[in-house]
């Protein structure tokens, strides 16, 4: 009796301890991951919390994420800008730069990608190799000579140095879109060709509609990089009325003159809002873009 009894009891205790172990692991996992995410997000939350804090508590009640009183006027004060120019102007400039720049870069990249991926022409592999080589070139090599060229062309204090180069497309995006075109079955091209469609027609009617995910991914990265670009606007847009948000924020938060930190934090936070909105709606495209091509976000 005793022997036959002990076996099910042992199995039962084992099952319970196994279940407890599993539950313990789940709690341990979520507990540690949540602590890690809080640490990761704390600086960003702190930035937004500080944008609602009053002048009296911003540097005294530093580590609290909940302001004692909400100071929405930080946003109106910040929006008023500095030197008589409101942040409406800076945001407008940034949207022009990022919007038009992205449109140029993505459109050109799609055309070039189709040429390299689907068409046969003399010298193709030579140009393609050259394009891959430009990917390796650090931009530092180009900064100085480009500045001299644009200076000679009298393009300083216009958007031309920022936008015209993007009409040539971007080697990253060309490469990424090419990978995408290669995955589209060739039979579709063939069928269209048999039906009397031209190469140009194939691109616009067959390929382009299927490229939507790749184009969205390229557009997101292009927008991000342009939105946060600091060096080029700093070099080419000296007129305060032409400055982008990133350059304006640097002057606005200059440690030697800044005083209204609530307003500064408000504008820092506001400059991140377009980025987060895109992130929330298009996260899938971002994740796939990075995972498949190594593009940096």
């Amino acid at each position, binding site marked *: 009796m005793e022997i036959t009894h002990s076996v099910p009891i042992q199995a039962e205790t084992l099952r319970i301890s196994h279940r407890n172990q599993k539950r313990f692991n789940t709690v341990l*996992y*979520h507990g540690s*991951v949540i602590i890690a*995410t809080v640490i*990761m997000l704390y*600086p960003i939350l702190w*930035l937004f919390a500080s944008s609602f804090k009053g002048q009296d508590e911003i*540097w005294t009640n530093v*580590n609290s994420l909940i302001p004692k009183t909400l100071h929405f006027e930080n946003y109106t004060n910040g929006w008023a800008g500095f030197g008589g120019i409101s942040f409406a102007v800076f945001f407008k400039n940034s949207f022009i730069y990022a919007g038009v720049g992205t449109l140029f870069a993505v459109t*050109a990249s799609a055309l*070039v990608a189709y*040429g*390299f991926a689907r*068409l*046969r*022409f003399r010298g*193709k592999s030579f*140009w393609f190799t050259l394009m891959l080589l430009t*990917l*390796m*070139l*650090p*931009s*530092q*090599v180009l*900064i*100085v*000579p480009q*500045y*001299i060229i644009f200076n000679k062309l009298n393009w300083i204090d216009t958007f031309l140095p920022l936008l015209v*180069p993007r009409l*040539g*497309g971007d*080697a*990253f995006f060309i490469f*990424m879109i090419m*990978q995408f075109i290669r995955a589209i079955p*060739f039979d579709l091209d*063939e069928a269209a060709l048999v039906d009397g469609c031209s*190469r*140009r027609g194939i691109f616009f009617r067959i390929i382009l509609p299927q490229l939507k995910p790749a184009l969205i991914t390229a557009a997101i990265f292009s927008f991000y*990089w342009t939105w*946060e670009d600091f060096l080029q606007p700093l070099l080419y847009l000296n007129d305060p009325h032409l400055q982008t948000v990133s350059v304006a*924020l*640097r002057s606005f938060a200059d*440690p030697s003159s800044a005083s209204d930190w609530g307003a500064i934090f408000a504008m*820092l*936070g506001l*400059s*991140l809002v377009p*980025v*987060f909105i895109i*992130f929330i709606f298009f*996260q899938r495209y971002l994740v796939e873009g990075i*995972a*498949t091509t*190594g*593009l*940096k*976000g």
Partner: protein
Amino acid sequence: MSNSVISPPIENVKPTVTQRIASRRTAGKRKDFKQDTGTGYLFIAPWLFGFFLFSAIPIAISLWLAFTNYDIFGNWQYVGLDNFQRMFFQDVRYGHALSATFKFVAIGVPLRLIFALGIAVLMNTHRRGVSFYRAAFYAPSIIGGSVAVAVMWRQLFGSDGLFNAVIGGLGIPPTNWLGNPQTAIWTLILLSVWQFGSPMLIFLAGLKQIPAELYEAASIDGANGWRKFLRITLPLLTPIIFFNLILQLIGGFKVFTQAFIITGGTPLDTTLFYSLYLYQRAFNSYELGYASAMAWVLLAIIAVLTAISFKLSSFWVFYESKEG
């Protein structure tokens, strides 16, 4: 611009059977396609235009500038190798820039990759809430290059900033993190480690490719989690680790905005990163010739380090096809 693409790491590792058949079929049919040079050049015309005007001609100019003492007013003389001699033997600050940059890369890149891999392993599960966690870990990376985050970081580590307040709660006395030559570079390294999102996503895509049967077989043989990580995950992931390493290495040498805003190269040039010093030479003291010479040396440094990495990779990067 950001990182470069060397090869798509995941997709091309192992083409599926259908992909292989599809590519064989297209390769066969492509021969039937007539060569059409006119249309071809029409489509790549935008890139050709951009390449000649904004890459090829500037490269040629830059190469010429490197051997002159060109200034902002356009005055110049041919100076031979003077710029390079000055860089290597006379310019003390150039040495500071090199050592700051190497320190940043040598500490920052491995730390970033370790965090990226560690968190990617934690995210490689079907537990509830994992997509939220993944987004939270990635969020700092999408804003990390911006001026807003750089200003935030500066205030975070300021004397009355958040960091001092937090460690003050633990009883550690406040420090001027940005003004101390011992600590300033660590705030920038920490900022770079904080943005481990991109390598994390690349690792995650690689982890999902590892067949579950391998882990099941190891479990039957009695291997524990840590052993499975060392014997299965790490070896199979080495191609991805290598890919990430190259990307981060190249990216690490180009850091500019953060150092420009947060420390400006101070204190005592301990955070005077290469790109920052190049910018200062070019646009603060208008030595465009000298700055161009610096840019070519940077290109050489990156090229040599990349070549060394590729050479060393045969010792530790595991490719399935070789073993099979």
